[in-house]
């Protein structure tokens, strides 16, 4: 990486991180909402652990994986909203007057949500473990969860950036939230796939990539080291990054037109 590119990324990353940290409206819901749902589901669905074949006797441990997924979805909203705001306020047009590279813009702009993603992951794990959740894979598992969270945050953040660059509207980015909420609920979020009774629902959950992200983290919490679950989870996260980055780069070409 040459010095100019590093400087560009560094400046935008600093701006992105400071901007994110100065917005409690982005941080508080991203921390509180997933933990609230965790608390409600852990109490409300504890009976599910009594179903034959349920993989753990602690629904809290089972549900803890969902918080990371919800956290990544907040990354999509936050990254997209911030970038859309830059489009709406003309900041991106002013950047177009500089020799800034598109790759530096995308990388720098995602720094804020990545830092927030780490804060989220640490908070979810601390709260979960304090409340009684287990991490079967131990310290290595915690590090792997952080690595996967990093990739998921990047992937969803890139998708949010793509939406922002494509539409140039924060309202349109916010409108994506219900879509991803649907993806979350139509996954193996609440029950393992083999215990989902409705055939059509099980089929949808099997095709839904969100299931594999949740199951990868869940395997570290419940099983220990499950190579297949981890490989699928990391593959889905990597695919999200590729798809998100390609879409964002294509949208950036038209958005960052230099005249």
């Amino acid at each position: 990486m040459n010095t100019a590119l590093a400087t560009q990324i560094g400046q935008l990353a600093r701006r992105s991180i400071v901007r994110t940290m100065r917005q409690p409206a982005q941080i508080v819901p991203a921390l509180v909402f997933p933990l609230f749902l965790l608390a409600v589901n852990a109490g409300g669905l504890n009976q599910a652990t009594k179903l034959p074949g349920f993989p753990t006797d602690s629904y809290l441990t089972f549900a803890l994986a969902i918080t990371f997924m919800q956290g990544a979805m907040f990354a999509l909203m936050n990254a997209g909203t911030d970038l859309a705001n830059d489009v709406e306020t003309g900041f991106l047009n002013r950047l177009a007057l500089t020799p800034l590279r598109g790759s530096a813009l995308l990388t720098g702009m995602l720094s804020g949500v990545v830092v927030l993603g780490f804060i989220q992951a640490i908070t979810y794990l601390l709260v979960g473990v304090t409340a009684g959740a287990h991490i079967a894979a131990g310290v290595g598992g915690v590090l792997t969860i952080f690595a996967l969270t990093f990739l998921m945050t990047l992937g969803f953040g890139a998708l949010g950036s793509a939406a922002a660059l494509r539409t140039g509207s924060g309202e349109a980015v916010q409108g994506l939230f219900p879509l991803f909420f649907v993806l979350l609920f139509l996954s193996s979020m609440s029950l393992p796939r083999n215990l989902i009774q409705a055939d059509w629902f099980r089929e949808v959950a099997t095709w839904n990539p969100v299931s594999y992200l949740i199951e990868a983290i869940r395997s570290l919490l419940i099983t220990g080291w499950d190579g297949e679950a981890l490989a699928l989870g990391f593959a889905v996260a990597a695919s999200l990054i590729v798809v998100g980055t390609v879409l964002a780069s294509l949208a950036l070409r038209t958005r960052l037109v230099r005249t």
Partner: protein
Amino acid sequence: MRTRHRYRSVALAVAWRNLHNVFTNPALLLPSLIFPLFFLVAFAGGLSAISKAPNFHFPSGYTAFQFVFVLLQSAAFGGVFTGFSVAADFEHGFGRRLLLAAPNRSGIVAGYLLAALTRALFSGSVVFAAALIGGMQVDGGGIDLLGLVGLALVVNAAAALWAVGIALRFRSIQAGPFMQIPVFLILFTAPVYVPLDLLSGWIKAVASVNPMTALFEAGRGFISGAPTEVLLAFAAALGLTILFAVWAFRGLRAAEAAG
């Protein structure tokens, strides 16, 4: 006689305008339909295995069990969405013109309430039809179903009056989270997935004192043809409605004072 006529004409005009806006604008109509339908699909479809948990006895099946939650949730959020309409009207200046023009201002609140009840009837009918298509078993008779509809309408009125009270005080759509979040909390800290007896931990303690618990249990009693806690449920719902009616009318005074 003349006062009553003025009151009625204001209420009907406000209600008609609100309903016209909602039913001619898909962006306003669809969320109030899609969310309950989605919850019905996600909970009744994805979590039906929970009904196999030990001590879970609900003869009408898990779809009927979840339908009551979804119906009351859609009624409550129908009321909240009406609060959004009030806030938007004031934000765009229409609310102030309405205050100037209305010969009886109490009729404004009554009009919005009438619109909320109509919207709740519509979304409730759609959810009921979807649940029947999804194979819901209804063991309750006509009187039971009437009781369930009555319960949903009282919940809608209480939520609408709560949200209208907030909207009239803040007169800005930015107050939306203050309308939604308390309703979301009271709904999800009640027995959503399993009956109260099967809850555990803190959620059981909270659900035991949450008035929505009595409403869910009464509603589930109606749908299964074994009414239970009917008086308590209606007393709780009507109590909340009276409380929030006072809240809404005091909000109207606050809006008048603000000019």
